[in-house]
């Protein structure tokens, strides 16, 4: 569950990092934007979760594309370096998060679902939010994988993230594809945000930032720039985080340290295999 959310967030981060050389610190807050946009749309459409989710996906994708026009494109034209992009992203993260705080308020919010309902699936107990999010996440992950593998747009994006100049020489419209990348990254962030909101039951605007480092860890696990790597990396990391608290495994770590497991995976991966599980060795 956590895994599929990390996977969807990870695809967005890995694309942006691989193609634009931008470590997108604001991506967590894009997820939070999705969560809250979903909350808004659900209310607008009379508590219809499906329409609300669709609205959140479109709104977040639109925001991501708009930000490309006003912020990232000017920075690209000035050939801004890694550091400039990173700091601009931090600035964006601060603005996004606190606009959400301002508009939605700091107290915990929740989607209109029954928080007490429990579904039993064999030995597994799911809350209503989890029961909704699980199939949606599974289908979306398969769909995303299929889109990247089969469609023309998916191939263009992968070509760009593989080798930007080679893709440009091969006649791929780089600027259009970058807009497409932002749209995909934003749409997935919107969906992941809604799902996280459902799974977490109640949330505040910090939920996005709390997911950021685990998402980074998923990206590193899969290898930067690799879409499938991020998908698999997210799933593995989510599973690892959940299993790490399981007592059968060496007593497990205390639940408080679940997040630290993600950080530790990130650091250990970078040290022993910085190219990721599926990445190629690259010289710089």
């Amino acid at each position, binding site marked *: 569950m956590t895994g599929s959310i990390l996977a969807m967030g990870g695809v967005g981060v890995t694309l942006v990092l691989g193609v634009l050389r931008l470590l997108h610190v604001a991506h967590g807050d894009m997820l939070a934007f999705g969560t809250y946009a979903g909350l808004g749309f659900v209310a607008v459409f009379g508590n219809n979760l499906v329409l609300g989710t669709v609205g959140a996906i479109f709104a977040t994708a639109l925001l991501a594309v708009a930000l490309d026009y006003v912020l990232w494109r000017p920075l690209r034209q000035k050939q801004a370096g890694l550091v400039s992009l990173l700091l601009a992203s931090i600035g964006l993260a601060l603005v996004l998060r606190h606009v959400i705080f301002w508009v939605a308020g700091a107290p915990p919010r929740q989607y209109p679902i029954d928080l007490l309902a429990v579904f039993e699936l064999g030995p597994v107990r799911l809350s209503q939010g989890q029961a909704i999010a699980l199939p949606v996440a599974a289908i979306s992950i398969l769909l995303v994988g299929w889109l990247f593998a089969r469609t023309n747009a998916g191939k263009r994006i992968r070509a760009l993230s593989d080798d930007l100049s080679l893709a440009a020489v091969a006649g791929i419209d780089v600027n259009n594809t970058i807009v497409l990348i932002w749209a995909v990254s934003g749409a997935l962030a919107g969906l992941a945000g809604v799902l996280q909101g459902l799974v977490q039951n109640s949330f505040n605007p910090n939920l996005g930032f709390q997911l950021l480092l685990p998402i980074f860890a998923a990206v590193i696990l899969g290898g930067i720039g690799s879409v499938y790597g991020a998908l698999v990396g997210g799933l593995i990391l989510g599973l690892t985080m959940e299993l790490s608290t399981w007592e059968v495994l060496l007593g497990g770590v205390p639940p408080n340290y679940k997040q*630290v497991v993600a950080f530790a995976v990130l650091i250990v991966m970078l040290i022993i295999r910085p190219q990721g599980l599926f990445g190629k060795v690259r010289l710089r």
Partner: protein
Amino acid sequence: MSALFDAGFWSFVAVTAGVFTIMSLGLQLQFGYAGLLNFGHVAFMAIGGYTMAILVVKLGVSLWLAALIALLAAVPFSLLLGLPTLRLRGDYLAMTTLAFSEIVRFVAVNEEGLTGGSQGTINLAGVGTAASYNQEWLDVIETLRGWLEPLLGELASRDFTMMLVVWAVAILAILVIQHLVRSPWGRVLKAIREEEDAAAVLGKNVFWYKQQALAIGAVLGALAGLFHAFQFSFFSPADFVPLVTFFAWMIIILGGTARNWGVPLGAIIFSILFAGTRFLDFAPFSLLESDERAYLRMIIIGMVLMVLMVFRPQGILGKREEMVLE
């Protein structure tokens, strides 16, 4: 508008600026001169503050000895961080250091027996007894204040005295770093920043130089953590969120990378910006609740960061050529 003319308030702002100057100076050495993307700098502040407070409260060590040990403790932690990670590429280093600072913070939150947990140092001696670690410091400040009072009268508040001490230390630190970066050692650092391979070919141990820059910066971070702890008499893990590291980055970028005197400039501008939203108490801002004004402050800071990156990434005093373009 009353606070606008209140010397006590501005002394407090100046103390904050001084603490940020010391902290950011460490980052300036690491990034501005050595080109290291340290996004976990706040961890060293936490390590400094907690080491001192734990030694004083739990082991009864004298404040001064504890402070010295706290500064030195930053070095092994910087080795712990640096040895495995300094060979990494820039963006990877940024992620690892950020994760490192979050691990430090999580440990501070969860190891209640050691750190007092999420409630902070007030629980250092166990829940129920309010622990205090800085009595010796307050005594010294009070003595200094006593000396200043005949000269300055009412102006000589506690914060004012603290401000003088913090800034004296900050300026001293700047002079030391200034001396360091102009030495042969500093020239090697800059060479590494510009062209790592070339420096290596000339027989310089690139890795070791980076590690030294990281360690010295870490000690400055710990020093800032000490002053933070002294000033507030109490601190908690919430004081060491990644946001503080981002503030330090904003400060060195504002002032200009590889410009030591840019650091205090950036810190002062930042602190005024940070404190300044208090004065937005005229219409339409007077309609806002205090928490809304706090959000507005962060939104302004984020905006400044983005606008700065688009229009003047080298900062106020910086040179474009020295902005590391990796």
